[in-house]
């Protein structure tokens, strides 16, 4: 290793040649504030918050973009540096609405934290504030350009991680805003609603669209039966909204909390994840055995679906026709369960708790209705659920766990895996293996498809057959894989695509500001559940079996096609 010595705050430390000063500082435990910095992405140097003083040249340099030099001397908190940082924050505040008390990001806003850290205690700089329109056109995401500090993280995530580029900087100088082509509403753009922009936004400029009012109305309405479902990732993520340790599984507590705030029935989307596996594995086998379009691609992720409709419409025939677990659950609730309870579907208000903002969009798609009734009426993100519970005075810390409701509550651990990138794949393979060989997998873990990497590939032997599988998350990775297939790659039969890097545990509706460690904790909790519990495959879920026996018949039956499958179409958007 090529190491050199540099002096930080008069203390000599070792640094690797070519690395950025910021990396050394982080390793040394010296905190230098950043606003535009995204780990592992080429530094943009826009916010200037991370400036440090280069003693020898007397200049302030940005530590995120300046590589270490032999024998350089750096001051990270000299008066000049701290004053400069403070002035920069004050400048930002001078054009910021600073209506923190009314802001969804109050108390977890990076700008707020910085101004507190730097002891901004007086409005020294004032001037004309920005006054732009709030864009509420999207079903999932609300943009408030007034609060935007133009750090550009959203632009870069949208381009570099998602490959969508729905937004970019528009105009120049103090008139710069982040917006879509011709600054139209986000709904006209190619935005896939993944919400990763929200995850990186340091302020309240990007938020999810809130549905509290409708849900509260429904809860208050005595004629309505309010049903809630929660995605596999929620139980391992919600804890962080309440300051509990990352990855803590609060499934039972959450059941109780949901009942406390007035939900009549509490179901688990993991149940319908199992259902999805039944349908999807049947479809995969059908395609393989009948010369259907391959590779088959999963359809659980609504961000990916919109992306495909816009950018990869040539692959629409490859995408599984299965609805996502959220929509399957919605459809089953308003048919099977409604029948069972002798209830009219109109009187059911169906809420889904999702780690995802794109699910809000998915729920309002035209295809996701049957006979004019929407499968799912409202979607809350993990964050919103946290806020909703707090608003209703429910704190997770002192609640006794409760069981989920039956018959749409029992789950296998395979369904639970849906939270992680690679999980759908693993669950589907377990069931497909059984269906094709009549035997259960001995080694139920498939390590090749686990982990945070953007692309994972494996060759799986099922009986005589070897099938190639690929798992991608972060749509840039999906785009690359699809291009390889366009160019003639033939060894892949089944692909799992998740829009968000790492899958739903890192979805756009999750806790903001989670570290990589927190993500890993969520992932490992899911796998721990899988290790510990007994029912590890979807086809052994008794309630799913019951559903088929009593209602659907068998996978890919006429009725399941009507309720659980859908279709996609090429979308013309401003892209």
């Amino acid at each position, binding site marked *: 290793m090529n190491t050199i010595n540099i002096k930080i705050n008069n203390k000599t430390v070792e640094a690797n040649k070519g690395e950025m000063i910021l990396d050394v500082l982080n390793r040394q435990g010296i905190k230098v504030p950043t606003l535009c910095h995204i780990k592992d992405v080429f*530094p*943009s*140097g*826009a*916010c*200037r918050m991370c*400036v440090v003083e280069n003693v020898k040249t007397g*200049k*302030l340099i*940005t530590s995120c*973009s*300046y*590589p270490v030099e032999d024998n350089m001397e750096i001051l990270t908190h000299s008066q*000049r540096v701290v*004053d*400069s940082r403070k*002035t*920069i924050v004050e*400048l*930002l505040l*001078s*054009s910021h609405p600073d209506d923190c008390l009314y802001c969804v990001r109050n108390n977890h806003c990076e700008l707020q934290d910085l101004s507190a850290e730097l002891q901004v205690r007086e409005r*020294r*700089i*004032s*001037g*004309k504030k920005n006054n732009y329109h709030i864009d509420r056109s999207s079903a999932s995401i609300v943009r408030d350009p007034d609060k935007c*500090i*133009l750090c*550009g993280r959203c632009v870069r995530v949208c381009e570099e991680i998602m490959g969508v580029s729905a937004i970019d*900087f528009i*105009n*120049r*100088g*103090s*008139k*710069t805003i982040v917006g879509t082509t011709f600054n139209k509403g986000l709904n006209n753009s190619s935005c896939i609603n993944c919400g990763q922009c929200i995850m990186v936004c340091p302020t309240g400029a990007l938020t999810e669209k809130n549905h509290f009012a409708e849900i509260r109305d429904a809860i208050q309405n005595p004629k309505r039966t309010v049903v809630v479902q929660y995605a596999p990732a929620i139980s391992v993520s919600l804890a962080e909204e309440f300051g509990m340790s990352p990855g803590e599984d609060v499934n039972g507590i959450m059941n109780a909390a949901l009942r406390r705030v007035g939900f009549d029935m509490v179901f688990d989307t993991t149940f319908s994840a199992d259902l999805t596996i039944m349908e999807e594995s049947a479809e995969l086998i059908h395609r393989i055995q009948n010369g259907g379009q391959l590779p088959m691609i999963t359809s659980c992720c609504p961000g990916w679906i919109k992306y495909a409709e816009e950018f990869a419409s040539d692959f629409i025939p490859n995408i599984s026709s299965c609805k996502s677990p959220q929509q399957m659950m919605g459809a089953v609730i308003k048919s099977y369960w409604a029948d069972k309870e002798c209830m009219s579907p109109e009187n059911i208000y169906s809420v889904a708790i999702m780690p995802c903002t794109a699910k809000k969009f998915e729920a309002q798609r035209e295809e996701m209705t049957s006979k004019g009734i929407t499968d799912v009426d409202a979607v809350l993100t993990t964050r919103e659920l946290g806020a909703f519970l707090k608003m209703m005075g429910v704190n997770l810390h002192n609640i006794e766990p409760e069981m989920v409701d039956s018959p749409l509550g029992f789950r296998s651990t395979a369904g639970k895996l849906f939270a992680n990138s690679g999980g759908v794949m693993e669950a589907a393979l377990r069931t497909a293996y059984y269906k094709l060989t009549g035997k259960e997998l001995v080694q139920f873990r498939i390590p090749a498809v686990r982990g945070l990497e953007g692309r994972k590939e494996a060759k799986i032997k099922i009986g005589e057959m070897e099938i190639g599988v690929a798992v991608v998350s972060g749509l840039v990775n999906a785009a690359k894989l699809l291009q390889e297939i366009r160019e003639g790659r033939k060894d892949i039969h089944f692909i799992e695509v998740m829009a968000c890097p790492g899958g739903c545990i890192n979805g756009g509706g999750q806790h903001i500001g989670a570290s990589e460690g927190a993500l890993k904790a969520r992932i490992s909790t899911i796998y721990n559940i899988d290790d510990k519990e007994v029912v590890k495959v979807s086809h052994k879920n008794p309630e799913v079996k019951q559903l088929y026996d009593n209602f659907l018949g068998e996978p890919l039956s006429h009725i399941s096609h009507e309720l659980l499958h859908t279709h996609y179409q090429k979308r013309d958007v401003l892209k």
Partner: protein
Amino acid sequence: MCANCNNNKTFLLEEVLRDYSTNTRDAQTLNKMAVFNNEQNDIPVVFVGAGTCGLGAGAGQTLQAVKDYLQQKNINAKIIETGCIGLCSSEPIMDIKLPGFNRISFEKITTDKVPGILDTIFELNVPKTNVLCQFDSENNRKWENVPFITEHPFFAQQKRLVLKNCGIIDPVNIEEYISRGGYKSLVKAISVFSPLELCEHIIESGLRGRGGGGFLTGMKWKFANKEQSDQKFLICNADEGDPGAFMDRAVIEGDPHRLLEGMAIAGYAIGATKAYIYIRAEYPLAIERLKIALKQAAEYGLLGKNIFESGFDFEIKVKMGAGAFVCGEETALMHSIEGKRGMPRPRPPFPTTEGLFGKPTVINNVETFSNVPEIIYHGAQWFAAIGTEKSKGTKVFALSGKISLTGLVEIPMGTTIREVLFNIAGGIPNNKKFKSVQIGGPSGGCITNENLDIQIDYDSLIAVGAMMGSGGLVVMDEDTCMVDVAKFFMDFIQRESCGKCIPCREGTRRMLEILESITSKPRTGDSNEALERFKGIMQLEKLGKVIKDTSLCGLGQTAPNPVMSTLRWFRDEYEAHIFDRKCPAGVCTNLRTFKIDVDKCTGCTICSKKCPTQAIIGAKKSPHFIVEDKCIGCGACQEACKFEAISVL
């Protein structure tokens, strides 16, 4: 190409390639060369200065009038449209070279003057008016009582290397450029030096970048030379955006081949085979002439593949800017060429390591490149002998504002500002008092009376809070308000800031607002507003410091300079605006308070009709009054009043 041209080409190329060290040519060759460069002519030659400034002053009409005249009188003469010789205030300029006579130059030739002047000169008499000077040459008769150009005060103290041919030669005729020694430096560079030696030679000459920073040009080249890469790029920055600067435009319009030659030499030195000239779209004439020059150079084999069989390929493309001042910054410029938003990126990595399309790239401006052929031609030592110890060579300045002669001057480094303003440019017109000169445009600062005797070089200017910049000199007299000047530059920078980094984007906006509040009447008398205003003023210096310290690129780092500099030298003017709410120069109209003299007012009502805010009331035929609260100080009433009844309080 016609046969004749082809013959010329062969002859001229031989001339270019002729061994440099034996600089003797036979009489026949010399004669032939003299024909190419219009030293010798069989028929009269009329030159009209047709640069942008000349055309703006009516050179197009003058040209037409000359053509009409010649046609009418049935005179067979050659007409050449030259670039700008630099004396913009004398445009349109027309020169005449009669066979056997010295070339004689006339100033301010509007269409009506053309017949008279031409009549006289064709009778071999010197016209009584509009004579500017004559050019000296050995083999021609001189005009009696006409000063030589070297005697004209505007030109006498100049040393013209970059501007050598400007306004003299036909810019779109490569034959003339070659006949004046053009492209010989390129040949010398390729045949005498290795690329690395060439870099060393330029280092030795002491040439520093003329675009602002003043980095040693040869060093920059050497950095790029040392990089290993499959492709390197050379870029000429001709995105001259400073208000009040037009040197690059004049050089390209007047002598484009000089730039191309300089670039080819630089390309050889760093090992670049591809080059771009990034030029403002607002310079259509320069672009047109550049394209013609490029075509000619390619036809002559002076650009393109395997130049003179040396194995050196060099290709130049013209890229038009789309209107963004910040693209004068190196990394922003490269982004713009790449088809992106012209936003700077942090350095390091420097362009010489990772530049255009990620490849090693050298960026110099027009003036820098245009110096190179002279350096190679005469040698580094020769160049290093001009100027001061740390600033070698000459510098071109664009003079404008309240100065008698406006235009372009090229002076050796070390000349004092006083000499430039008062000896060369004739001082301040209308008996007004000199106040200050703004040097370096929006990034620069002002130089006051006390500092007029400092030498012009990179370091002395920085020492007094100004900078060389690209070379705009805007002169201000006592009628100029320095707060208004600072506001003008801040407004400019604020609009041109790319918006990427916070200190520049938000900081310049706030500084402008503060300056605006200083130069306008308080909207209300409320104490909160007064406090806010006061706070703002307290912030100016502090904000300026942080913007300088923390901005991402040169634009931001120098953005506060005009404010800081005026604040340093003209604090009293700021104080007058702040405390007395008065603009001493009477420029900040919003601070003016008008009064109607009841004795002079006849009640004609014209002023109240002109007033845009209905601030003047009064009955017909009786004295009127100004409602102070409504008055915005525009001065429309004062302009309209025929009885001089309205005055500034």
